[in-house]
């Protein structure tokens, strides 16, 4: 956990997905532009205050510059914004939020938010998610996976921890059980509200091995601040091993309630 602190400094966190560089480029260009506008404007402002301060013998000049000239900053800002929209915002937004990547070949994850946990479900070796039913939901089965469905037998469920293989596209189906939450991994520069009654797609490609943090970014109740999960990006082999170990641990857990019932 403490090791993860290396990911954060006084500016943007480390870049750990293929969206991060693109978003950071925009943030940096816009902030340089903002700084330039503010400084130029500030110099002009201070100059006016000093040059035209009231003093004895100072005469007011009533003439004004032409309206057309005064619109230069408006036109400049408009031009800059049109450029930003056309070459940056529209194409990048399309890549990040509109064009859903194909499910085949992607690492599929179902992610369900609830007060105040994140539950992840991986489809297992068969690549298929088992059927779910609301009446099957309990604390050991947050998704309500139906036991009879063979597709669900190898599904892996992890609560408040998730792992992704590096350099593979991850396609998340994001849902919420109760109120609106928001899926936010700062290092990935990925954010999406989780809305009850909706299943929303989220996708990204982690490109840096390491440990990161998933937090809830939308006020969801008293436990909002503690609603977080550990995210680990690792190589494919370690990821597969983790899935297998989760499955084994789940079987060990499942044995216990059954034994209690017999007793």
């Amino acid at each position: 956990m403490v090791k993860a602190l290396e990911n954060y400094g006084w500016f943007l966190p480390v870049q750990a997905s293929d969206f991060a560089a693109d978003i950071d480029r925009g943030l940096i260009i816009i902030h340089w532009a903002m700084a330039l506008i503010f400084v130029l404007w500030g110099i002009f402002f201070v100059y006016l205050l000093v040059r035209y301060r009231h003093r004895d013998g100072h005469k007011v000049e009533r003439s004004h510059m032409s309206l057309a000239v005064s619109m230069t900053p408006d036109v400049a800002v408009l031009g800059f914004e049109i450029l930003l929209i056309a070459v940056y915002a529209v194409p990048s937004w399309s890549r990040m939020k509109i064009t859903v990547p194909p499910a085949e070949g992607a690492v599929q994850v179902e992610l369900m938010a609830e007060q105040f946990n994140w539950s992840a479900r991986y489809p297992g070796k068969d690549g298929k998610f088992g059927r779910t039913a609301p009446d099957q939901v309990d604390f050991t089965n947050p998704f309500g996976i139906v036991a009879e469905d063979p597709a669900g037998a190898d599904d892996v469920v992890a609560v408040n921890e998730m792992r992704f293989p590096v350099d593979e596209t991850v396609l998340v189906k994001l849902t919420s059980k109760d109120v609106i939450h928001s899926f936010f991994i700062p290092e990935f520069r990925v954010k999406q509200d989780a809305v009850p009654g909706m299943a929303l797609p989220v996708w990204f490609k982690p490109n840096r091995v390491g440990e990161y943090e998933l937090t809830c970014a939308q006020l969801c109740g008293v436990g909002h601040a503690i609603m977080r999960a550990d995210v680990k990006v690792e190589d494919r082999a370690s990821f597969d091993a983790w899935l297998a170990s989760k499955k084994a641990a789940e079987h060990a857990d499942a044995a216990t309630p059954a034994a209690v019932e017999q007793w």
Partner: protein
Amino acid sequence: MSEHAHGHEEHSFWRTYVFSVDHKVIGLQYLITSLLFLLFGFTLVLLMRWQLAFPGQPLPLLGRLLSPEAAPGGVIGPMFYNQLGAMHGTIMVFLGIVPLAVGAFGNYVMPLQIGAPDMAFPRMNMMSYWVYLPGGLLMLLSFLLPGGAAQSGWTSYPPLSVINPGQTMWLVSMVFLITSSLLGSLNFIVTILNMRAPGMTLGRMPVFVWAQFVTAFLLLLAFPPLEAASILQLMDRVFHTSFYMPAGLVIGGQTTPWTGGGQSLLWQHLFWFLAHPEVYVLVLPPMGIVAEIIAVNTRKPLFGYKELVGSMAFIGVMSFVVWAHHMFLSGMSTTLSNFFLVTTMIISVPSVAVLTCLILSLKGASIRFTTPMLFALAFLPLFGIGGLTGLPLGLTVTDIYLHDTYYVIGHFHYVVVTGSLIALFAGTYHWFPKWFGRKLDDRLGKIHFWGTTVAMNGIFLPMFIIGMQGQSRRLYDPTAHLHNLVGQPMHVVSTVSAFVLLIFQLPFIYNFFNSIFNGEKVDSNPWKATTLEWQCPSPPPHGNFASVPRVHRGPYEYSDPAHKDDWLPQDAEKAVAPV
């Protein structure tokens, strides 16, 4: 209007000072009430700031006075923290800034500036205040209810707001507040259209009147959707209808009584359809105030009167088609986001135009650095920061990262606090002589100005830094997240600055109440201004003008070389200076 209708008949104390129909008394009622609400809302955030800077530490002094449920052992609990957050936002916006900008300044100054004896509907004006006050008091009293005040943010997104305690009173109170602003806005529009003095054409109205005119349309057209939306939410809470509640909700492992079929996004659309125009309700009247003060203190006509007015009207129209830029990540159609991206970028242009006109008004001027002028000048760069930082938030791609972080908090506080509130302070210093016939003390005013502007920047600048680090807003304990640990000292800077800001409000509060009775007496036009409100006595009598003013010219005729003085009032005859 005849003398008779606004005659000088004697009224009882109650009819003169409490249930008055005089726009000036109502304006002052709004002024005092909204300033007190602002102070209360500010106190709430001080408690939050303590928790943010020193999470889990008992609150000094005040901690023991809070109830054990709210703050066990003097430490603010997460539920109480969320109540403070929701109520701070609600109080500052709906009980503080809007009533101050519109109810107080609009009510008092606008009829005077157009040469009217009163508002068009004086009784409706009185009713607007007397609906606002109980709405506001209900909001405050909700802290004392079992379950406490609303705790789902000022945005009140369902399903959270529907299941959380405290929300019912918030909704009831909102219905009062919206009704009040509806009554007010209708009155403003009718007054401005019908009550102008002869010669006061639309093109001769002061910029402040234009700002109030546009604002009134925003209030009239944007608030009713929220009133309807609030009533629907109230029904979801009380009668378990499902306007906003989807099927199959499981809360804390329990199924819920809502049958489903509702859409939680519907509330967000209705809410932001109000709340984005609302931002311009918070901003336009302050822009008008700044324009007035700059004209008076530069001693020359404002630059680009038509451009200013046109820009404000354009902002007003556009503000109805940008609301969903608050919802880029809400689950709304992501293709639709591109439309709102474009409208959002378009609306930034008239805002740039307003600032440009105001700064170009300084060119060739003879600038007097009076206290109101200092506040008005500070508005320009600080509101500029607020506007500029809106750019990465309005741009869809960069908003993915910055949405719901402290960057957003920094951005809108620069707009509303260092922008609107600073301008409202400017207006208070500027029009105080008109209200009471006495001036606010200049030395205390300058102390207030410097302390306030420095402290405000100390509070809000650090928020951009921690926002860039990815810190989410509305966190009870920021240190619960690893990625917030580095930035934690910035919360201490913010909190210390917030307490400094409180200290620097003390000279203002003293100055305000002391000057009402003991301030330096001034004549009716101490700033040597041209607009009509300065051409009647201070304070103006019931009925305002001794005779109906006749307007001969535009509002900012300063330093006309063909006139004897450097100001030429709108209703005065031009007089050549004696040689």
